[in-house]
């Protein structure tokens, strides 16, 4: 998978990828990757994050089952300062 804006080639050579939008930016994920796989690639799997796919909340219990589709819009959310 490639990090947004990193310019890096997909890890492992030319494995098929799927184009998604990740936190508002274009991103190429590995084809067939799950939400969990995506978080692993982003080094966020052990962080306290929540995920929206196409505007809907993905239950944490389903991270391993829900697969990324072409044109999926993914938002990875965490806690920030607020009043």
């Amino acid at each position, binding site marked *: 998978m490639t990090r947004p804006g990193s310019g890096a080639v997909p890890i492992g050579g030319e494995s098929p990828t799927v184009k998604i939008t990740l*936190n508002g930016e274009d991103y190429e994920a590995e084809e067939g990757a799950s939400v969990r796989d995506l978080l692993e690639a982003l080094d966020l799997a052990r962080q306290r994050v*929540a995920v929206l796919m196409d505007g809907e*909340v993905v239950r944490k219990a389903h991270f391993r089952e829900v697969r990324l589709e072409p044109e999926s819009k993914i938002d990875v959310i965490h*806690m*920030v*300062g*607020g*009043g």
Partner: protein
Amino acid sequence: MNIEDKPLRIGNREYRSRLLVGTGKYESFEVMEKALRESGTEIVTVALRRVDLSGKGEKTLLDHIDPARYTILPNTAGCYTREDAVKIAHLARELEIGDLIKLEVIGDERTLLPDVAATLDATKQLADEGFTVLAYTNDDPVAAKQLEDAGATVVMPAGAPIGSGLGILNRNNIRLCLEALSVPCIVDAGVGTASDVTVAFELGVDGVLLNTAIAQAKDPITMARAMKQAAASGRLAYLAGRIEKKRYATASSPIVDF
């Protein structure tokens, strides 16, 4: 007689501190961490936003807030519709930090005052789904009671617009809210300095939530300490029972007897 205060009860938890403090607008995480500690708060609010994926391993908020020390209260700040607020509450639930939610559905961008109708709808839905809803509202006692009836565990009337520092603009309405409610009433928003906190507690509120007044004070850590003392002082004065206000003087010394 030595008055002992009861703890603040929210849901199934009890708290000794009656201050709730926000984590936004600090100049740094380090200042925030020290200010929270000085305030003595046990409940801190957070917002939910996108992870900055270009962050390159920078520390995040959770690196500076110990969930063992603080109850984390996620808010739905920035939401203008019931649907968006409910979605953020659902996201918060997936973070597995508890079932508390500080519900805000904003009605106006300039004043950040609430859309009370949408807040009522969201309160009903989230309370039915098992959330412990702390509902941000205005200082209208009718709205306050409606939110309690809709299932809010805590009702949070604004003293003044968020971040305005104007203090408690309508003390009579806050008092009326207190009379209308049987659930805790925590003033949220508008506090500017220590005396505003004291005034709120002297009215009889169960708690005060503040953020900007500490975070953007010239010395947030000292202000946090001031707020802690202000809260304690206002609460004690309320429990002690103040004298009535009178139009004319009543001498403090006996009349001259020589």
